[in-house]
């Protein structure tokens, strides 16, 4: 089931002097099983948008349909027990390691499924499976989450969401504060989760990551979807109108073009693709 937004508006502090329209008439469909990136400057509505996907927020107008659930401004239309949606759409917020709280890693990861009604045994089993998926072995079960390194803590937080077996995983700036290698490991983990059939929705400012991993990009601007397309379509043009930066590879290709070497605006996900494109055009 895709996620469908129909005429969605969201207004913070309505009917007050501070009222602010964070979403302005969003209409879009997000297909399942894809790696979707949501980009846009600070304050463009990215976080508000994703919070409608698991009903942390409800629209002030319009509706969002997700896996048979309806998150609507209209009470009659709205799914009654919408809390179940939070199990299907897992959300990993920015700096999720700050939300760890249990005495042991295993208890922390098992908290989610337990909260949604699993028995202790079922929850621990789900927790162990989720920990294996993120690469935390048995030696971590009884350790305190607070004694782990930054990258490990983040893995624990992600495992906690995976333990609920979500069909859609939303991650907000998952690599902020991680060193380059830990960032790469985290992104590759999402790629594996994607391969197992989970839709990944990534909110990020890092265009190098977006270009390398995303199948589709949604550009938010002033509470509207300004563009929904593939990374190649997006990064082939100048992004300054959305006050976004092109990925490093695309910027370099643009400079070469200015100096007379014609690099086509095809996929330039990483330095290897860029080097290949240069090779093909330097001798041809």
């Amino acid at each position, binding site marked *: 089931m895709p996620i469908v937004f129909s005429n969605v508006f969201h207004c913070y502090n309505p009917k007050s002097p501070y009222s602010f329209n964070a979403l302005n008439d969003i209409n879009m469909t997000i297909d399942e099983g894809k790696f979707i990136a949501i980009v846009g400057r*600070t304050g463009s509505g990215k976080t508000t948008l994703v919070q409608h996907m698991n009903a942390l927020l409800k629209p002030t107008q319009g509706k969002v349909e997700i896996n048979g659930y309806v998150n609507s401004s209209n009470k009659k239309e709205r799914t009654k027990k919408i809390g179940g949606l939070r199990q299907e759409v897992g959300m990993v917020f920015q*700096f999720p390691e700050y939300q760890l709280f249990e005495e042991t890693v295993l208890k922390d990861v098992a908290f989610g499924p337990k909260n949604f009604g699993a028995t202790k045994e079922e929850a621990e089993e789900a927790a162990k499976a989720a920990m294996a998926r993120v690469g935390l072995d048995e030696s971590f079960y009884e350790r305190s989450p607070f004694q782990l*390194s*930054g*990258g490990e803590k983040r893995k624990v937080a992600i495992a906690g969401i995976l333990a609920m077996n979500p069909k859609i995983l939303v991650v907000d*700036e998952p690599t*902020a*504060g*991680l*060193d*380059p*290698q*830990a960032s790469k490991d985290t992104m590759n983990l999402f790629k594996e989760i994607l391969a197992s059939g989970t839709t990944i929705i990534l909110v990020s*400012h*890092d*265009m*190098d990551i977006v270009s390398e991993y995303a199948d589709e990009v949604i550009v938010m601007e002033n509470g509207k979807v300004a563009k929904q397309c593939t990374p190649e379509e997006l990064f082939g043009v100048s992004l300054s109108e959305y006050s976004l*930066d092109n990925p*490093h590879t695309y910027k*370099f290709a643009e*400079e*070469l073009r200015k*100096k*007379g*070497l014609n690099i086509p605006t095809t996929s330039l996900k990483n*330095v*290897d693709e*860029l*080097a*290949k494109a*240069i*090779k093909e055009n*330097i001798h041809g």
Partner: protein
Amino acid sequence: MSKILEVKNLQFSYEKETPVIKDVSFDVEEGSYVCLIGHNGSGKSTLAKILAGLLSDWEGSVKVFGLEVNRDNIREIRSKLGLVFQNPDNQFVGSTVRDDMAFGLENRRIPTEEMDGIINKYAGEAGMIQFLDSSPENLSGGQKQRVAIAGILAINPDLIIYDEATSMLDPSGKKDILSLTLKLKEENPRLTVFSITHDVEEAWRADKVIVFNHGEIVLEGTPTEVFSHTKELQEIRLEAPFIISLINALRKQGIDIPDSIKTEEELEDFLCR
């Protein structure tokens, strides 16, 4: 040239038997921009705390401005040293940028009538003058770090230490702080910057790079020297800057790139020649 930092045979452990820093020695010259890189948990931040006198019981010698870091000297050292920490939300104390900067000046007993002039001057240098009456929640992470830097500039420091000052910022915030740092260095050649970071693009712009792994220095030199050790860096899971990665990828494609190429512009010109 005088030495701003002198670290000799430094050893430190939080718990006995597991040393976090093992026999580390290095110098930082006055007016230089030195980056210390290493992955999460390599002991980088512990080193920053020792330099700022926030830890005790280490072995070896640590001198800042030629003064041994100890209880007698720490006040004098800190009066000329500014620290910028990782989390921009943890270092804002005032309700506006102006109040935040005034707090630091009050602590140093600057007379009220002089404050406005000082605040305007350094907020201007840090590019935050139009935000003086903004409250922190309306600032981006990069702008908050600019405020922290402005507050430090106001004490006229000889040394600024960044402890992963940009690691929580998005790419444009990172770039923003890097260009501010380079601008400040250009305006004041005596200013020394010691930056603990995992941003290799920042390290690429420094005068000297020190690579830390498991509490030891594994590589030290100019960015060009250090980042030419591709294999060693890969072994300790550190990335190369974009320009180095691209040159390596081009060589893999059989394009011969001379060693003399150091900047993206030089590489562009070479490829388009």
